[in-house]
């Protein structure tokens, strides 16, 4: 007689089942898609990308997905970016600028509120944020808000955030290199952590040269 736990208890969750119906969005980088459950960025959840310096955000990693979200006609909120999302290049990358919200909360405690409101409002298809601190309760609240608003929550944090526990559905460590980047999946709901995924970029960035 084989031992089959789910027949004993129906509420035992097995790692192989579940999460298959989670919506996801292709990242535009096949090497990364292969490693993510659902084959892309998890929608209705929080994604954390840890970068060396948040002032040098690798937007190229997410622009294909943001451009693909454009057909939804929902808004994309950028909360407290540490630099300037450059409009001419974003438009070239296929992002609908008229659906973009650029929010700079004046005070620190307004930041998380703004992210939560934008995520939970069901008005934004994606909320990109650059929080200075994000752990514990805050990340849990954002995760719930993202689920409520069916929104893709995206946080760019620095490397030292890796030591904190968060409830983000996906946590990536991003190391840029000459040809693209090396991505480590620190945490992935419904999948498994993976090291050193090599992402290759197109040789030249979009735009026409003279």
């Amino acid at each position, binding site marked *: 007689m084989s031992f089959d736990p789910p027949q004993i208890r129906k509420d035992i969750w097995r790692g192989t089942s579940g999460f298959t119906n989670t919506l996801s969005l292709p990242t535009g980088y096949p090497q990364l898609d292969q490693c993510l459950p659902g084959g892309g960025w998890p929608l209705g959840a929080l994604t954390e990308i840890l970068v060396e310096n948040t*002032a*040098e*955000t*690798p*937007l*190229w990693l997410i*622009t294909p997905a943001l451009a693909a979200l454009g057909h939804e*006609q*929902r*808004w994309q909120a950028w909360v407290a970016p540490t*630099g*300037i*999302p*450059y*409009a*001419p*290049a*974003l*438009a*070239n*990358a296929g992002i609908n*600028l*008229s659906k*973009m*919200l*650029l*929010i*700079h*909360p*004046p005070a620190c405690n*307004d930041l998380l*509120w*703004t992210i939560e*409101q*934008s995520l939970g*409002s*069901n*008005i*934004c298809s994606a909320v990109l944020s650059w929080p200075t601190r994000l752990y514990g309760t805050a990340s849990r609240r954002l995760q719930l808000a993202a689920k409520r608003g069916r929104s893709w929550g995206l946080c760019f944090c620095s490397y030292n955030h890796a030591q904190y526990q968060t409830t983000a559905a996906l946590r990536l460590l991003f190391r*840029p*290199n*000459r040809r*693209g*980047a090396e991505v480590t999946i620190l945490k992935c709901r419904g999948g498994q952590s993976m090291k050193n995924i090599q992402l290759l*970029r197109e040789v*030249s*960035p*979009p*735009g*026409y*040269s*003279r």
Partner: protein
Amino acid sequence: MPTNSLAYSAKGDPHLTVTSNSPRNSSSGPYRGLETASDELWMALHLPLLPLVASTTITTQTATVVCQKNQHQYRVIAANRSAEEGGIRTNMALSTARTLVPQVRVLDRDLQAEQLAMEQLATFATAWSPTVVIQHDRVLLLEIGSCLRLHHGLPTLMKSVHKSLPSEKLGCRIAVTPTPASAVLCARSGDAVCVTDRARLISCIGSVSVQKMKLTRRQHTLLMRLGIKHIGDLLRLPRDGLVRRLGLELLQDLDRLTGKRSDPQPIFKPPLCFEESIDFEREISEVEQLLPESKRLLARLEQYLQRSCAAINHFEWRLQHESHSCTQIPIRLNRPQQRTTLLLDLAQLALETSFPTEGVTQFALYAHPLPLSQLENMFLLPSTEPCEPDQLLDQLYTRLGQRAVRSIGCHPDHKPENAWISCQPGMRKPVFPSAARPLWLFRSPRPLVIQNGRPCFHGPLELSRHERIAANWWNETPVQRDYYQAQSNRGPIWIYRELETGHWYIHGIF
């Protein structure tokens, strides 16, 4: 406890006696057959206790009167129940009233407050009829014949009026007759009358004393001498003789009563802006205490907007302090709204965000509505956009301020820093083709480290795609830069060399 001078809560069920002279009606229920009345029908509401309500917000059991100076003598204008029980009547000299009830509380008549209260009531009454008239001396007149079907008949309308007005507090007396003058007369004389038929009107007003009419002293003496006590007696007199003895005006008044003469009325127009306040007896220092009140005020605003077919795109909380200073908390809406109760969260957010440290003695809501006709295009067609960010934007604006929430667009400028522009969310800006540009631009260019005469960024750089930008030489901020795409160990970056100084900078990352 907050007190509102005119809270339209149900205050018991006042008794209304319906005098109907028709045997058909009196035999089977007082209101039968009234629905068929299609002619003009006027409802007059006499509010004798309005001066009391307007002069004080506190309702007490002690005898209270409101008095006014009239020909060198103070006379009682209104008296509350306990004062009346002590024998005080209206129009009595104040000295007499003081003799009857020595401990009586005397208030001065506040005509301005009374007028304000009257206007509030009139605005409120536009819920029942579009034709509302404020008559002098505390009478409100409504033409209801044209809107009986809307209210499912007269009995339902009467019930609604009684339910929503604080009838007992205002001493409200209601009369319904086919002519405005007779309705006012009946309401003033204190009889609760409901007559819908012109034929029965004469017999109804016939029993009213002539003294209730506007009479000069001469006319009054003459009528008394003739032994004419009731209006019915007057109506029976020959018309030409009446004109000769008592003047044409009296006959015209009589004709207005019976409807023989037209009687145009100045129609009340609701005020253009909404302003309603709640006074507190004690200072409020916690925002939580205001939240239920804010809900009430917003509900009132919504009623007002529905009645006046208007919407608002801007409203304001006004918090009055003990020191007579006032905190104003404006709230701007992205799109005009009529259902203001839906804005409760937003309004409370604004209150919580900018609640003053000083205690609040008065809490007011102010709004300047826009007529819907101006906004027709916005409401006529359903919105083509599948999701409107209004609610989110309103919330963000309220908490973060207008300037914190923007959108971006392209701008035709050669200088890279100026090739983008921050604009109002939802604005569609044209996109211009450009050479390869980085997705991420630094807020300000950062100087690069030079090693062996070459610029470095996390190691040595390979330069490619040269582009010279020489712009703005015609104004004060000229730029002359040689831009390069550089391949670094961290991916492609955008760097430039200042032609004038030869310094290297990193401007963005691709």
